[in-house]
């Protein structure tokens, strides 16, 4: 079911259609010559509410990690009341293993700007902020250059071809973060945008009602917005011809459309590849990434950003779509940034690295996350040095199972990252943890009859 032609990557040379060495920045003129902004032009003749219906019909699900229906998210917005309404573009891509948005923004940023414009029109949003992570210095300059091109060509600004939106001239601005993973959490992002610490907010109220500056706000991921132009041009039926329905029955939301997969770790050819949702991981690794490095064997992988947990040794053929959480005992597809580990990798060390990330990035608001992740990290360090005990494994599991938004002990889902990495590592590679632990109890001679 491999894709026959690229969609998001059509101007960004990528295997198997092109060579990444040929990648170049696609400026406004080149972008337009190759069909760019046609979706926006078509959208100008469509009523905003019909645009939302079209996106709803496409069953586009958010590409930022949670996989929430984009059209549904938009429809939560209240009626226009004359005051400002915002779009916050989540370009704070910072989960280890995730680099797909960077490729879009580095080379074909106008795809994103077109999506932003369509979303603004559909949802009556007058101002958009692209929240880009502080570490993406080069990407920031590229994005700013493209923004100026978009202004010069009247996509945004005082003489925008969109006219007025929500009674105002449409504007888009870039807002730089400064190195905090938690600002990728949608309400943490809003706080940071407002000039505060990026502390996630307690919900409700949801951002659709009270988001940035207390006003209705849509927050979408870069890749989600980048695909909107194609949905408008080619229609929702085209979108749904890629990917597939859920295997959990008709009522469960499906996994449709093209998707960028970032592959990293122990593979021969790491990079961003475009595939339909539902592609087998083995397919991605063997065909696109050209197999495991140095002729080694596959041992484990992370399906999409380290928060998702581990796919085990017997899950190499895992089908990567939004069902994969329930099917393979991981948190979900996440950002589809696959990190592959070969047979020589220590799962205990990998888990320690992942937990260190979450400990480091905890914002400190909620005790289970702030304290819990630090304790989990200490226990894992102890185990790595061969100082752990068998009891530690159960303690780890207990700690992991009791922290996070899903057991309901934290405001945001950051602790769930620690939680899933640890509990799936233990569930799927318990023997490895046991191998670096001493027995907790002293052996006692018991007389046998």
């Amino acid at each position, binding site marked *: 079911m491999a894709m026959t032609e690229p969609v998001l990557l059509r101007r960004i040379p990528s295997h198997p259609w092109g060579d990444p060495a040929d990648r170049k920045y696609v400026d406004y003129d080149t972008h337009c010559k190759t069909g760019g902004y046609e979706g926006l032009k078509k959208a100008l003749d469509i009523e905003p509410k019909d645009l939302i219906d079209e996106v709803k019909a496409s069953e586009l699900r958010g590409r930022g990690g949670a996989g929430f229906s984009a059209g549904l998210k938009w429809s939560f917005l209240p009626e226009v009341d004359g005051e400002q309404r915002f779009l916050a573009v989540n370009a704070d891509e910072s989960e280890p293993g995730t680099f797909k948005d960077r490729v879009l923004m580095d080379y074909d940023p106008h795809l994103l700007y077109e999506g932003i414009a369509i979303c603004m029109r559909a949802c009556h949003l007058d101002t958009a902020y692209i929240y880009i992570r502080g*570490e993406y210095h080069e990407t920031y300059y590229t994005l700013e250059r493209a923004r100026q091109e978009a202004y010069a060509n009247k996509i945004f600004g005082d003489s925008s071809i969109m006219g007025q939106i929500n009674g105002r001239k449409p504007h888009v601005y870039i807002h730089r973060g400064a190195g905090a993973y938690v600002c990728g959490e949608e309400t943490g992002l809003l706080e940071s945008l407002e000039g505060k610490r990026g502390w996630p907010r307690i919900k409700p109220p949801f951002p659709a009602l009270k988001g940035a500056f207390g006003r209705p706000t849509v927050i979408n991921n870069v890749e989600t917005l980048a695909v909107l132009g194609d949905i408008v041009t080619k229609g929702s039926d085209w979108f749904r011809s890629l990917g597939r329905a859920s295997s959990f029955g008709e009522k469960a939301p499906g996994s449709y459309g093209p998707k960028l997969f970032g592959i990293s770790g122990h593979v021969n050819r790491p990079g961003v590849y475009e595939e339909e949702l539902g592609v087998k991981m083995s397919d991605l690794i063997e065909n696109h990434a050209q197999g495991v490095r140095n002729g080694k064997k596959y041992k484990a992988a992370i399906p999409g950003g380290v928060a998702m947990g581990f796919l085990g040794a017997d899950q190499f053929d895992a089908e990567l779509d939004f069902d994969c959480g329930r099917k393979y005992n991981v948190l979900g597809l996440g950002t589809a940034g696959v990190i592959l580990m070969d047979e020589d990798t220590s799962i205990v060390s990998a888990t320690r690295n992942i937990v260190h990330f979450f400990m480091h990035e905890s914002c400190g608001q909620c005790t289970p996350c702030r304290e819990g992740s630090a304790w989990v990290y200490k226990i894992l360090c102890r185990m790595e040095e061969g100082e752990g005990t068998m009891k530690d494994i159960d303690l780890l599991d207990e700690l992991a199972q009791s922290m996070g938004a899903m057991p309901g002990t934290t405001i945001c889902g950051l602790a769930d990252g620690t939680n899933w990495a640890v509990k799936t590592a233990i569930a799927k590679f318990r023997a490895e943890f046991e191998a670096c632990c001493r027995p907790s109890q002293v052996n006692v001679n018991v007389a046998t009859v």
Partner: protein
Amino acid sequence: MAWIVKPSGTMQIERRSEPYLTEAMRRELEAETLPRYPTKQAATLPALHMVQHAEGWLPFQAIEEIAEFLDLDASEVYDTATFYEEFFLEPKGRYLIQICESIACELCGYVDLKSKLCRKFDITNCETTDDGKFTLQMVECLGMCDDAPAVLINGKMYRKVTWEQIEGVLDALPDDPNEFDAPGIHPAQE
């Protein structure tokens, strides 16, 4: 870790007569930045970035000046600034070397790279060499997992780094960071 408490109560503030937030910066903030947001506070991050870009770090006096400019309390701006890892509240070296320590980089050689770097400069995480040239910082994911391991030097990204290569780059760095080819545009645009 953003939540570590800073000893602000006993902090000695060094002052100079010349403002950190210069007239030119104020004008730019006034003309370019403030109109973008419905509140003045939202210009906090842009203002902090601006001063740090010029000074290399954020002295407390600068934080006070930003606060005054944005009609905020100094504590509010300080509160925000302390949260973000990329805002430096102490002077750093002329070159900031940020090494990615996340999983893809660790799988592809971060550990070796880090230990060699630490040994070369005899510094560890968040320390600066005695001559004030280099500050080392281990950071979480730089988003370069496909080109792991990755190192960021004053904002310029080095991909698929080997020790020999990065040592060559470091040895060749001019004493004056202004002569360094800092990031402006992405390599793909050149």
